[in-house]
């Protein structure tokens, strides 16, 4: 974990509420792994006070990318930053996706909902570089909520889209699309990131089919590095439920570890 008070924004892309920032920071990118996140200050002052947790969308060389959706005042301030501005970031934080075992003869399905697509680009690229087969399912409420379609396609990643309103791709929830496709074939495991209800559906589906699944959870965070104990979720530990920190013990947990009914 490093602190870079001056990661420079070298490129910015915007699709409505969604923003992608490409940053330059040797300190942050050199240790980055798929599923990790940054804690980003949104202002030099104290209001908003806290950093915002933002998923790593990609990393390589001295560059890294973050992708986020404006959800409140902090992310709105972040969205107002321009190319050339600097960002004060801590990272990379958290334990990312566990990729051991995903080699040339394996297939992974990646499921992203809304801004939850963010970490799956880095993950897809990394899995492909290990020789694994990759297929991405990308869902949103409507077509404007799945803005990264072209980015995945131009990187040669097999992509299936869904929208709740049917404005693009499969009409319905991305987990319903996943369920349909699972009838035709099975991957060796899947990875998902999205809002809690989607994570719960994906997790229960994986358990029912006996498929290993890794889910990336999100939460309001105070610090992002394990000291404030704010971002807890109910997780199995020694066969009992315990409040574990999403920032430090996660954000990625096995579907079989996460307890939904108590959370």
């Amino acid at each position, binding site marked *: *974990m490093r602190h870079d008070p001056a990661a420079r924004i070298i490129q910015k892309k915007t699709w409505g509420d969604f923003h992608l920032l490409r940053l330059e920071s040797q300190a942050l990118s050199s240790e980055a792994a798929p599923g990790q996140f940054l804690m980003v200050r949104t202002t030099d002052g*104290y209001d908003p*006070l806290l950093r915002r947790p933002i998923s790593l969308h990609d990393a390589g060389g001295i560059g890294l990318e973050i992708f986020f959706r404006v959800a409140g005042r902090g992310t709105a301030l972040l969205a107002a930053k321009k190319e050339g501005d600097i960002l004060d970031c801590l990272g990379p934080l958290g334990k990312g996706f566990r990729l051991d075992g995903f080699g040339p003869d394996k297939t992974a399905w990646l499921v992203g909902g809304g801004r939850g697509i963010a970490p799956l680009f880095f993950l897809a690229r990394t899995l492909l570089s290990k020789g694994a087969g990759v297929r991405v399912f990308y869902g949103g409420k409507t077509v404007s909520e799945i803005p990264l379609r072209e980015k995945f396609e131009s990187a040669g990643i097999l992509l299936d889209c869904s929208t709740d309103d049917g404005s693009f791709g499969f009409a319905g929830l991305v987990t319903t699309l996943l369920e349909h496709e699972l009838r035709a074939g099975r991957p060796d495991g899947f990875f998902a990131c999205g809002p809690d209800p989607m994570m719960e559906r994906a997790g229960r589906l994986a358990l029912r089919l006996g498929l290993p699944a890794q889910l990336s959870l999100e939460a*309001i965070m105070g610090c992002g590095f394990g*000291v404030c104990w*704010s*971002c*807890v979720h109910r997780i199995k530990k020694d066969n009992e439920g315990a*409040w574990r920190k999403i920032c430090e013990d996660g954000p990625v947990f096995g579907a079989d570890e996460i307890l939904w009914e108590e959370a």
Partner: protein
Amino acid sequence: MADLRADLGFLQLRNPVLTASGTFGYGMEFLSFLDLSAIGGIVVKGLYYGPREGNPPPRLVETASGLINAIGLPGVGVEHFAADVLPELRKHDATVIVNVCGDGDEEYFQVIEFLNRYDGIAAYELNISCPNVKLNGACPAMNPHMTRTIVATAKQRSRRPLVVKLSPNVTNIAEIARAAEDGGADGISLINTLLAMAVDLETRRPKLGNVFGGLSGPAIKPVALRMTYQVAQAVRIPIIGMGGICTGRDALEFMLVGARAVQVGTANFVDPAASVRIVHEIAEYCDARGIARVADIVGTLETNR
């Protein structure tokens, strides 16, 4: 460079900047950001006798220049702390103050007596703001009689200096401070968080799982400064001030109104190296103004009252 040492009477600190309980874990979490021997000391996360789970989420909500937390004091308990954490802290030459919690007076004393057997602890900070389940959530900090009683017994059972951490959620903070002094406290630290709440207008629900929480951060600094000043006027024992300190200037303001040392809390979440930065900023301030000893600033506020 200015002499930054802070003399608490019962404890000599390298400099006046400590980290506040609950915002610095057990210290080890910050090793990639700072050298624990570069700050005055650390007050570790509050310890009950046994391990604790804490409250259901949501546990934190951000407010204007602050945050409200209802973490519920999860922790490892004294046995794990003494066996696994304390030896590590000693390797890093950290001055360690243990924040002592209890659900009822007896648990506070059990924590103290257990930790008395271990070396490497400079003092105890008695967290008298812990809600007592049997007393309907009341805490000793809210009543001068209860404060004096618990402090007197804790002092008797302790082989170490005892700092008493006051709650701001009282009518007369000076009266509680005097009760702690009468009970035999070696020092006073203040303020703990301000009781607060936040609600969601759309869902019509509280924003915290526990409904109520404690407000901290820059938003509370003026209240903390006022109370530190009032307590400094009321007692003779050393005072450690805290509440929203983010910069060296903030720290020096608390010293100006009478605190001999300060604690940095919520700022650690935003800037993990805040405490060591504040030490440097205090030194820079003193050097720029030819102040030879930072201790000379303590209690030098001039008023026309």
